[in-house]
Structure formats: C-alpha cells, structure tokens
C-alpha cells in the first residue's frame, strides 16, 4: 500500500512537472533562455536517468509542434536527443552525488552541469541545423562548421542563462521535490 501511494505520488509529480515545464517552454521568452533543461535535469536527479531522459524527450516532442517559434521540423529529433541527454545527466549526477555535500559546492557543481548541458544541447541541435545545409547541397564538414559557428551567440546566451538558472534553482527545487516525495535530505 505504501509503495502504491509513493508511485502514485511520483507519477502525479512527474505529470505536474511536465505540465509546468511545457507551460513555461511554450511561453514566449528571449531566445535560448529556457527552463526545460533545468526541469529535465531535476527530474533526472529525482526520478533517475530513464525518467529524466523520457521527460526531456517528450517535452521537446510537444515543443516541436507547439513552440512559439513555429514547427521545429528536421531539428526536432535533435532537440529531443539533446534534452534526453540532459535528463540522463541528471540521473548520472544523482548516482555520483556524495552522501553529504556542501551547499555552495552543490550550487557550483550544478551551475557547471547546467553550462555543460546547454553546450551539449546546442551542439546536438546545431548539428541538426547543419543537416539542413547538407540537404541543401553543402559539403558535410563545412555545413557542420557553419551551423556550429553561426549558432555561437545563441549558445553563449544559453550557457550563461543555464549556468545562472541551474546554480540558483537546483538546490531549492531538489530539496522541495525530495520533501514532496518524503525523501531525506543529503545536503548541508
């Protein structure tokens, strides 16, 4: 009975997080300032790599159709892969977390993880953009170089915003989510 209650609670929480994340993701906002990777990472930390990956994948799938920037097209699978990686990183990070961790250090680490997630996500989606150029007849290597190089300014904004978002929000969010699931603290 207790396990069933926990599972239902987890499922409900997963659904609420997905709805919240989608609502924020579909709201018009400055390009490359987003909270989806943060939510995905948090889900990965709380529920594990598999759930985190699934969460990121499904959010980007819906976003691909409903985004305020229009239909994502060929880039959508790459966005899904990128966000899946963010969720998996959350799960991996949870496994590698020490028993006790200093709060400042946790914030610093998650800020760095946020930056690396943004970087990986941008590289993967830029490769998707590069495929557009390849389909247009451009040489493969040149297409990838152009896609990555010309996406650099968006990427820098993304890395910076993710660093800030992860550094500030991860700790209180994980704490709150852990409390909701009735888990013990591992911080401080």
């Amino acid at each position, binding site marked *: 009975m207790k396990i069933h209650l926990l599972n239902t609670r987890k499922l409900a929480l997963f659904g609420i997080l997905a709805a919240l994340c989608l609502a924020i993701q579909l709201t018009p906002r400055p390009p490359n300032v987003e909270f989806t990777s943060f939510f995905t990472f948090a889900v990965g930390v709380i529920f594990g790599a598999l759930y985190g990956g699934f969460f990121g994948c499904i959010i980007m799938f819906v976003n691909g159709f409903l985004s305020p920037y229009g239909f994502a097209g060929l880039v959508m699978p790459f966005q899904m892969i990128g966000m899946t990686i963010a969720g998996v990183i959350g799960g991996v990070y949870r496994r590698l977390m*020490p028993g006790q961790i200093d709060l400042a250090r946790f914030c610093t680490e998650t800020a760095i993880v946020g*930056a*690396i997630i943004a970087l990986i996500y941008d590289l993967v989606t830029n490769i998707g953009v590069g495929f557009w150029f390849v389909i247009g007849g451009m040489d493969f290597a040149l297409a990838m170089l152009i896609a990555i*190089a010309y*996406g650099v300014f968006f990427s820098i904004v993304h*890395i910076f915003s993710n660093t800030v978002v992860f550094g500030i929000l991860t700790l209180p969010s994980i704490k709150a989510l852990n409390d909701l699931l009735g888990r013990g603290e591992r911080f401080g």
Partner: protein
Amino acid sequence: MVEKRALVFVTLAILVWAISISSLAAYFYLQNMMYTKQIGENQQSLNKTASNYDELMSKYNILLGEYSILYGIYSFPSGNFTSLIESLGRLLDSLKGNYSSLLMDQEDLNETYYTLEEDYELVYKESNVTREDFGRLLNEYYDLFNLLAVRELSLVLSQTVTLNVNACIDYGNGTINWRNETERMPAGSSLFQLTQKISEINYTYYPSMKPGHVLVDSVNDKKTYTVDYSEGWSWIWYYWDAEEQKWISGPVGCDAWMLENGGIYKWRFEHWSWP
C-alpha cells in the same frame, strides 16, 4: 591535495569555455573569409568597370574627334556641303560600327539611328545639299551619338549597379496592377524598357518628337483611341514625387526618362479633351 571530483568539474568548466571560444573563433574566421571573398569580388567588378570605362571613353573621344573635324568644316562659312555629305556618311557608319550591339539591343535607339540614316539617304540623293539640311543631320547625329554614349556608360555601370523600381498599370476602370520592388533593372534603363519588361506594348515612333520619340499605343491589349480630334483615351505615364508626395505627369517621352533606384512609376489609361 585537490580531490578528483573538483578536478572533474573544473575540467568540465574549462571544456565549456574552450568549446565556446573555439566556436566564436570559427565564427569570426568564417565571417572574415566571407568578407574577404566579397571584397575580392567587388574589387574585381570595379576593375572590370574601370577597364570598360577606359575603353568606352577612348571610343567616345575618337568619334567626338571625327565629329569635331566635320563640324569645324561645316562651321566654316564657304563650305561645300555636297562634298561633305559623304564624310557624314562615314561618320554614321563609324557610329553604327562602334555601337552595333547597343543599337541591336535597344529598340528606340535603333529606330532613331535608322530614321537618321533614311534622312541622310534622302539628303545624299539631292544634287545640291544645303547648309540647313547638312546642319540638321549633323545635329541629329550629335544627339544620337551622345545618347548612345550615355546608354553605353549606363550599361557599364549596370555591371555593378542594378535599380529596384516599383511600377503599376492603371487601366482606368478600377483595375490597377502593381509590380512592387520586383523589377530589377540595369542602371541606365529607360521607362520604355521597364514598360516593355512588365507588359505587352505597341507603340509609335515619332522622329520629330523630342525628347523621347515613343508614344505608347496599347498596354496589354488596351488600345488608345480618339473620339474626334478634341478628345480621346490615351496611356499617360507618371512618376511619384517623394518630396511633394504626389504623382507627376511625365514631362518627356517614356524612352527619354531614365529610371531611378527606388523610383515609382505609373501608366494610366485616361481620358483627355482639348481645349
């Protein structure tokens, strides 16, 4: 001793920084390559224009020199114009030889040249060429020569400059067809050339009319007509005066009006009456 976990995160942070900076460097490298290529192409285009300009000017100077000699003789009070008329014929041949491609390409100039040639033939057949006849031919020659030189110079410019113009055709029955910012014309094009490009026209060439010799008889099968000598319907052209913010009726024939970049032109089928 720094612990392994801290080292991993420092390495990750450095990795993010290094990849971002490398992408930034790649961006500036690509931009630099693109601009260098563009500058190279522009320079090549300018060199070609300069070379064509030199060629054109030397041709112009030679023809002008030939005309000047003939004009000098004509100006001399006791000239024998019957013997001079052959020199004018050679001048005409020389003009045709030097501007043959332009005369072939541009209908209005071609028409002007053949009208001049016909006039020349008529005068040539006369046993006694008068000073007035010779002077008139010489003037017509000079006008055409200058027009050809201007058009050819414009064509040289058009290798590097194209004009974006807007045009509309108002059929006078409420139907107005606009061609917005779609017409890219070579520099030096006349309204007549633009009209030919955007519509099917019939026209009449009037040698005695100046400046511009062309009157448009129909646009896209809509023909001009007169009820009697005092009223009718004709195709009239206008240009948009941006300062005055109004349409101004064309002051010259459409073949003499040179297009401006960003210019807005209108052909209107409209009623006229006289007086």
